């Protein structure tokens, strides 16, 4: 049987990598090639959740009173521009509730301007 010298084996590996178009890397050095070869995952990641229109996005279209600036105008029977704003009913109710609480004296406490002014500082030890 013919002796397989290391140089002979190395040349065999080099030949094999050239035939099969693989990188010749006899010492198995990490080349980072896998980070370049791997497919990009971002494009499929952003498609996971179905598109949903939120009130905030809808208001971008008709945010001003008539929507004229965005090229969206609706006229009523008298030929006047109509109010096309979209309201977030939950947010309006929240603001109404906050106003109610304020009138009953149950609003948020005043913010302390300086360190000594705080409620905690004026409390007796």
């Amino acid at each position: 049987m013919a002796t397989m010298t290391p140089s002979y084996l190395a040349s065999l590996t080099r030949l094999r990598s050239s035939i099969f178009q693989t990188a010749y890397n006899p010492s198995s050095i990490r080349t980072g090639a896998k980070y370049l070869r791997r497919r990009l995952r971002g494009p499929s990641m952003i498609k996971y959740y179905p598109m949903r229109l939120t009130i905030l996005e809808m208001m971008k279209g008709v945010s001003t009173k008539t929507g004229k600036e965005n090229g969206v105008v609706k006229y009523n029977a008298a030929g006047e521009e109509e109010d096309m704003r979209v309201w977030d009913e939950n947010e309006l109710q929240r603001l109404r509730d906050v106003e109610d609480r304020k009138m009953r004296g149950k609003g948020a406490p005043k913010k302390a301007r300086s360190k000594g002014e705080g409620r905690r500082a004026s409390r007796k030890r």
Partner: protein
Amino acid sequence: MANNIRVLRDIKARNGVFANEIARRAYLYVARDQRLPPQVRHQAQLQLNTFGRYTRPTTVKNRCSASGKGRGIIAEFGLCRYQFRLKARMNQIVGVQKASW
């Protein structure tokens, strides 16, 4: 879709990954390539560390697209097991029907 905070955070992470993926890949390649000088690799690693947490693909988690639940997700439909059952029984999932024999 349940727009709870966890779903919103997940959407944020997905957008962040999409926007920064190529730059991160390039730095990853430089940092991991053993043929490059150590200083260069170290600099690349430092650059990698400056990316925010919502740019890493591991931050992204598949959540239920109907209820926002994070566990018991059937990957093929992107739904949690309960929403999957509900929708399947309402014939809202094509090609799925209740087993009976």
